[in-house]
């Protein structure tokens, strides 16, 4: 049984501290949709996705009303499209556009999985598929794309890294009239996970069941509020407070995930424990770090504070859910977190500190605007650095940078909504072109040999 204080605490979390279920994401396998032509495959894909997820939005809305907790996003992830269009890769856009139409029909804001897994090598059909990404992202509205270029087991595919630098730039150019928004829907991963419910990096792994429901919880505001109540606690006690709070948040996610899967006739996949910020005040991961005693996110001490936060969130969450997966940690996207935006605008956090922070939290360099004249080889080098951190540390890392075409350091890009706004941040100008141009595979690290 629960007490009246428990009830009021939950109400406060929801009404004042932005507690919500960030996303209910249905993963759908597209492998049964492969047909002899691109047209037939695109039709089969559209039919399958709209049928499987037809009750996704209404079910999530009903759950939200019954349990009194907002469910912010309803989304779909699908099998990496490069696998579905392998026989006609140059026509992959047809399937991409069919998925975009399906997302609109379902009333969901994003659908992820215009993806390829090329961490050990790029097949010819995958190379052709990757080349379709910029146009497809420019011509669709809700489709998200991700590419896995490395893993701790296989090393880093530097040919793919080189190609992705060019693809990111081209995507920025083709969507320049929207501040390069196409790049906000494109993630380059190392150690991509197959059950991530968060966009833009969600796809439905080939090892997954046919249809699953994955849930991403949130609640940076709740954690910040809990820490406010213990302003003088030492860091052991602060970590304990974060753990307890993460437990409660995750339990709400677990309840919704199980119930949603049950009602949708899908398998309950995982709960992703990530603390996902939004640009709204009171919903910031950066402000949690500042609550712990940092003057501003980005100062020395930020990496340590983030490491503690990330670990405590995992410990509390793992206890609360029977199936944990996805990225499960703190997200540090610059444009989507008001504390990050303000620190970046004041010039108090830079790419180097952000890179260090990605060593200790989930994901990586996320939603960062860089100058529009950044060379492709530098974008590739940024990707390579992140992939190396992921590969060596056995964790997921990602790069989602937005080259701001025609803009320079200090200018701003703005996407609106959950994607937020960001100042253009400086990148190092030394040339990595020769290194990137070498291509090949960075071999897997020695500690990958575990069999």
């Amino acid at each position: 049984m629960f007490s009246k204080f428990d009830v009021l605490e939950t109400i406060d979390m929801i009404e004042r501290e932005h507690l919500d279920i960030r996303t209910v994401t249905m993963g759908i396998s597209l492998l049964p949709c492969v047909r002899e032509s691109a047209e037939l495959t695109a039709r089969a894909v559209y039919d399958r996705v709209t049928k499987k997820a037809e009750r996704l939005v209404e079910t999530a809305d009903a759950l939200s009303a019954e349990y009194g907790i907002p469910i912010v996003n309803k989304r779909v992830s699908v099998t990496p499209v490069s696998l579905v269009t392998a026989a006609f890769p140059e026509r992959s856009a047809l399937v991409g556009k069919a998925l975009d139409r399906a997302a609109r029909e379902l009333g969901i804001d994003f659908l992820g999985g215009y993806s390829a897994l090329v961490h050990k090598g790029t097949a010819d059909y995958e190379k052709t598929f990757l080349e379709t990404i910029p146009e497809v992202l420019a011509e669709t509205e809700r489709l998200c794309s991700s590419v896995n270029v490395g893993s701790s087991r296989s090393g880093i595919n530097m040919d793919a890294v080189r190609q992705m630098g060019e693809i990111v730039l081209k995507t920025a150019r083709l969507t320049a009239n929207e501040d390069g928004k196409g790049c906000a829907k494109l993630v380059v991963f190392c150690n991509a996970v197959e059950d991530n419910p968060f966009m833009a990096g969600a796809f439905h792994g080939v090892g997954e069941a046919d249809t699953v429901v994955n849930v991403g919880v949130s609640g940076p505001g709740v954690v910040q509020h809990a820490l406010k109540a213990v302003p003088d606690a030492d860091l052991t006690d602060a970590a304990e407070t974060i753990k307890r709070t993460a437990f409660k948040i995750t339990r709400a996610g677990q309840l919704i995930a199980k119930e949603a899967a049950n009602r949708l006739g899908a398998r309950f996949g995982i709960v992703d424990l990530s603390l996902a910020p939004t640009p709204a005040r009171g919903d910031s991961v950066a402000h949690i770090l500042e609550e712990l005693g940092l003057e501003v996110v980005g100062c020395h001490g930020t990496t340590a504070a983030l490491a503690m936060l990330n670990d405590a969130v995992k410990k509390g969450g793992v206890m609360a859910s029977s199936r944990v997966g996805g990225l499960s940690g703190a997200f540090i996207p610059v444009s989507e977190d008001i504390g990050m935006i303000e620190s970046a605008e004041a010039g108090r956090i830079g790419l180097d500190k952000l890179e260090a922070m990605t060593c200790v939290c989930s994901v990586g360099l996320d939603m960062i605007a860089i100058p529009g004249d950044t060379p492709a080889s530098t974008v590739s080098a940024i990707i390579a650095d992140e992939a190396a951190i992921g590969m060596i540390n056995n964790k997921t890392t990602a790069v989602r940078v937005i080259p701001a075409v025609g803009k320079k350091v200090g200018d701003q890009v703005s996407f609106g909504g959950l994607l937020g706004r960001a100042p253009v941040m400086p990148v190092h100008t030394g040339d990595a072109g020769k290194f990137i141009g070498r291509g090949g595979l960075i071999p897997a690290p020695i500690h990958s040999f575990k069999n």
Partner: protein
Amino acid sequence: MRAVVTVTGTDRRGIIAKVSCFLAERNVNIEDISQTILGDKFAMIMMVDTSESKEDLASLSKDCEEMGRAIGMSVRIQHEDIFNAMHNI
């Protein structure tokens, strides 16, 4: 099915009367009731049984929200499991 009704806002006369009347009209049975006043903030918590109600929980929830707006309070009805999940191991 058991649910929790919470009413929060600035204290004033007749809140309990209005909320209980609203629930009675919808065949929702009140099993337990408690209230606290923190400063000028009023918080009432009711354990209710909705199994005799013709309305499902989602529509009761919408009605509660509207009624809350009408009386200038925040009124919610939520499945008890959200509290069980978050506050019990």
